[in-house]
């Protein structure tokens, strides 16, 4: 895994382009939420990296963490567990996790496991930001 600065955010590339994670916005005085974009395919081969990156973001105690899944083609149960763990920690910290625009296979995983009843899912970042 390597982190590459890109514009105002950070960009990570894991497992030969299989999964990319970028952080276009971090909650601060000028930013109302932290936004993480996850793209590619998340599975057992990169879910530990995904979890560590997300943990690094929630360690900064954002009140609202929005994960944009619109570029994620696939997610297996180990990647789902990373999201569930993040949701649990955000909850404990008094913050909120929101997911945005899951593609068909990702939405199917969220539905099968009923994770979509634990974590709110929105159609757009703007909707998620309103809550």
């Amino acid at each position, binding site marked *: 895994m390597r982190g590459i600065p890109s514009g105002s955010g950070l960009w990570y590339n894991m497992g030969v382009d299989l999964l990319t994670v970028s952080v276009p916005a971090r909650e601060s005085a000028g930013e109302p939420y932290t936004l993480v974009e996850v793209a590619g395919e998340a*599975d057992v081969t990169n879910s530990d990296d995904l979890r560590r990156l997300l943990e690094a973001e929630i360690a900064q105690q954002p009140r609202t963490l929005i994960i944009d899944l619109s570029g994620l083609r696939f997610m297996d149960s180990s990647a789902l567990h990373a999201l569930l763990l993040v949701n649990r920690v955000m909850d404990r910290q008094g913050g909120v996790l929101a997911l945005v625009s899951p593609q068909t296979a990702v939405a199917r995983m969220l539905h099968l496991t009923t994770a979509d009843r634990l974590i709110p899912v929105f159609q757009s970042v703007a909707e998620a930001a309103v809550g």
Partner: protein
Amino acid sequence: MSYGYTTDLAAIRAVVHRYAVRAGLSEPRAIDLVLAVSEVAANTVRHAQSPGSLNIWYDSNEIVCQIHDDGVITDPMAGRRRPAADAMGGHGLWIVYEVCDQVDMHSDETGTTIRLHMKLPGAQRRA
């Protein structure tokens, strides 16, 4: 066709999706089969010591994906109980049983073979 794999699960998923569509599965069911195969193959990545193998075949009634590796499943009820929604494990095999029409599992000290069956649209009902 037989495919060996180690950690290249994205390639396995692409192969399964291609065969599922060619066999005549609808897109949502093809996605379910991809999910199931990926979960089984993920267990190979977690537990097996050597590469796994995937075999796919289909006829007019069903498509079957057979995954074999040298891992051993000791719990005959593995995947048969629904985990809590916020559980941090145990969803993988449960999803496999949930989305497939039939799952055959054989595991002994030499390894584990799992067959995932999906009925095709218009399949003849078996006696």
